[in-house]
């Protein structure tokens, strides 16, 4: 990028957005479309949509280890590979090398990062569910942590706004627990799944729907205008989609922002501090360190959006010390870095399905079934608070079934070329309660190679989560058995940690009272109103649904407010 960055004028924008991921992209899109000149700061390398999806069209044989992770890579990407194999040869370029970017674990935390254009939106699960009315009221009703300063109704139009833009495929069901959104046509269920849906409703009164997912089943003009095409049902989304079939910051928001000609993006540039102006009581800019040259530079703007991902956003606030904010910008309440939440997972059940031998699927559905929360909902009462949703579904087994079967030789080889029997399984995503002792903070001495204090994690699941997990496994077993499936086996992995859900959130929560919260109801730092935090850090409770669409809706709402306030000259 050949910018003349020498002059102060060239380093001054209307808005700075820190981060280019799910919410950074949305902030940049909304702000540029409303006429602002925006500087987006991305700490990682540049990834260009389509042309840098190097692995996207490769056949299985083109990956040396065919999806398995070499010992050497597993050690470098240790957080990514501690539980599963998130960073393998297909997706590795879109995950962050943990050895090069270390963090400190007082208690274990699976911190999965994506330092490049588009951030984690490159490989998100794309599941997109609205939080429901009760999700926003539960803290107040149950006396947990603090109340949300907003309600479902505040976010409702913004959910519609971002769903329309991203393109969410799903089935409207009219369930209060899972509010319907603005949907593209739903993806079909397989024969055993249709049977399962019907049986669950009949026997257990538990609803089952097809996943609501940010893959285009029927692109609309505003999608094709950005060069996005229909999902091709390859289900290789995490490699980057050359068709723009799924929504990411790279396929959607950033191209939209670029169309305005008001977006400037800096890559390999780490935001190290927010510069606070003691006179105006406003932030005036961002100090950055250029990743490779170590050069320090400052950029200025009227408003600043922090969208670095919950943990890095909180770290940036904590590292921005001034006379007014000796413990970090906006940290009067001592809540910055606290109340880490996520969704706990790795618990559910699997089964084999007899019958449906003649049913098969053409194409790979990049989507699953969704079973919305039924615990502590309506008349249901359990020995824990809140609830969980399940994701999973049926699939026809492939040659891999042969690994654990007896047999070898010509007949075995021939059999493996045919589809096998159906299997079905579900894994839960459970709500995590906010707890101030679940926190991250900056180490007093240890610094990273750019001289920025290292992040220390000190968080764990609480009693409520551990109790819930037992029920998550038991209910999954119950449902698969009720459906009459065979070999039902529950699982409840003990080696997961907070962070693994990659829904880490809560480190700069919203609230009505500046004494107990960091942000107001428009995501503005209470005591420094031109700083907006609209990534997961703003969350007051976690709900149990995948959170990205909520973050995006909050971002669009905050951007709208920011521009209104700028017009009124309040910022």
């Amino acid at each position, binding site marked *: 990028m050949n910018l003349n960055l020498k002059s102060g004028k060239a380093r001054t924008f209307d808005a700075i957005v820190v981060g280019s991921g799910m919410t950074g992209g949305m902030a940049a899109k909304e702000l540029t479309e409303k006429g602002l000149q925006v500087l987006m700061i991305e700490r990682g390398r540049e990834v260009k949509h*389509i042309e840098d999806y190097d692995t996207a069209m490769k*056949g299985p044989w083109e990956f040396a280890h065919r999806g398995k992770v070499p010992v050497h890579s597993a050690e470098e990407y240790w957080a990514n590979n501690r539980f599963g194999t998130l960073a393998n040869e297909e997706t590795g370029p879109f995950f962050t090398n943990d050895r090069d970017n270390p963090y400190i674990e007082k208690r274990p935390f699976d911190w999965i990062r994506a330092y490049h254009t588009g951030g984690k939106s490159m490989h998100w699960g794309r599941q997109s569910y609205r939080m429901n009315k009760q999700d926003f009221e539960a803290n107040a009703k149950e006396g947990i942590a603090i109340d949300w300063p907003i309600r479902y109704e505040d976010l409702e139009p913004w959910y519609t706004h971002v769903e329309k833009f991203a393109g969410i495929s799903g089935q409207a069901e009219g369930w209060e627990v899972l509010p319907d959104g603005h949907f593209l046509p739903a993806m079909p269920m397989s024969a055993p799944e249709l049977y399962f849906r019907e049986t669950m409703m009949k026997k257990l009164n538990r609803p089952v729907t097809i996943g609501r997912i940010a893959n285009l089943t029927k692109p609309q003009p505003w999608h094709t205008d950005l060069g*996005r095409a229909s999902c091709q049902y390859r289900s290789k989304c995490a490699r980057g989609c050359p068709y723009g079939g799924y929504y990411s910051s790279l396929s959607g928001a950033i191209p939209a922002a670029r169309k305005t000609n008001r977006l400037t993006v800096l890559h390999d540039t780490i935001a190290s501090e927010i510069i606070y102006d003691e006179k105006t009581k406003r932030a005036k800019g961002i100090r950055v360190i250029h990743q490779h040259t170590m050069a320090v530079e400052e950029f200025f703007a009227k408003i600043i959006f922090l969208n670095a991902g919950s943990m890095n956003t909180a770290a940036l606030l904590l590292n921005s010390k001034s006379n007014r904010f000796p413990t970090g910008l906006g940290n009067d309440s001592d809540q910055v870095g606290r109340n880490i939440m996520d969704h706990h997972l790795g618990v*559910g059940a699997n089964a084999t399905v007899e019958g449906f031998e003649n049913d098969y699927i053409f194409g*790979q559905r990049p989507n699953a079934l969704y079973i919305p929360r039924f615990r502590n909902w309506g008349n249901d009462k359990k020995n824990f608070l809140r609830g969980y949703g399940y994701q999973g*579904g049926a699939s026809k087994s492939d040659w891999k079934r042969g690994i654990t079967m007896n047999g070898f030789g010509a007949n075995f080889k021939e059999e493996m070329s045919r589809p096998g029997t159906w299997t079905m399984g579900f894994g839960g995503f459970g709500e995590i309660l906010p707890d101030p002792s679940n926190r991250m903070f900056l180490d007093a001495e240890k610094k990273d190679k750019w001289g920025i204090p290292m992040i220390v994690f000190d968080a764990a699941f609480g009693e409520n989560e551990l109790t819930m997990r037992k029920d998550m496994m038991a209910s999954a077993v119950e449902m698969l058995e009720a459906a009459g499936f065979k070999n039902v086996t529950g699982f409840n992995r003990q080696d997961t940690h907070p962070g693994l859900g990659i829904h880490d959130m809560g480190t700069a929560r919203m609230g009505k009272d500046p004494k107990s919260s960091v942000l107001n109801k428009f995501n503005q730092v209470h005591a420094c109103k031109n700083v907006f935090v609209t990534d997961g850090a703003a969350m007051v409770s976690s709900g149990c649904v995948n959170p990205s669409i909520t973050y995006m809706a909050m971002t669009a709402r905050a951007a709208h407010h920011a521009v209104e306030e700028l017009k009124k000259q309040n910022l």
Partner: protein
Amino acid sequence: MNRRNALTHVAALLGGAFSAPTLLAMKRWEDHIPGESSPPGFTLTENQKLLVAEIAEMIIPRTSTPGAKDVGVPAFIVMMLQDCYKTPEHKSFLEGLSRLEKIQFLHLDAAQKTDALKQVEIDAAEEMKVYQVQQTKMGDNEDREQMAIQVKGLPYWRLMKELTMLGYFTSEEGLKSSFEYVPVPGKLEMIKMKPHQKAFAY
């Protein structure tokens, strides 16, 4: 962009230039391959290599379609053991081979070889009982096999069979001759099986 345009676009890009930082990242990634940090000491003797090749071919023999040897499975197995597995698996793999060497496996006739492998398979089933292998659903429809960390390596037969099948069914020839390869389905349909339906591979 319609589908045809998208395809053309991608085809053009695949021959095109990637950005320098991406190439760098890819290079960094690929430099790990193969086995920069292979734990020392995992090598096979010539005889052991013959044994691996013979058994791989018995698991996936050449029929009207290529066999394990035709698509390079034996070398793949060695590479995978070096790169992706640690000492416990190296040990158990070598133990398994040495048991076969003791019975002079390579000198047995075809029927005896088959019987011997069947016995290995039966023994492995017993050995596998100590492993808590779990299939875990991770949100989407992907099955991930999960295992608690084991002190003892996976049994020889399990490693041999898994790596033979992986090497064969994901090789270009093995995959295309066994399955209906559909890299870009373009649609999603619930269908009925045809007679002699091959599995789709994507």
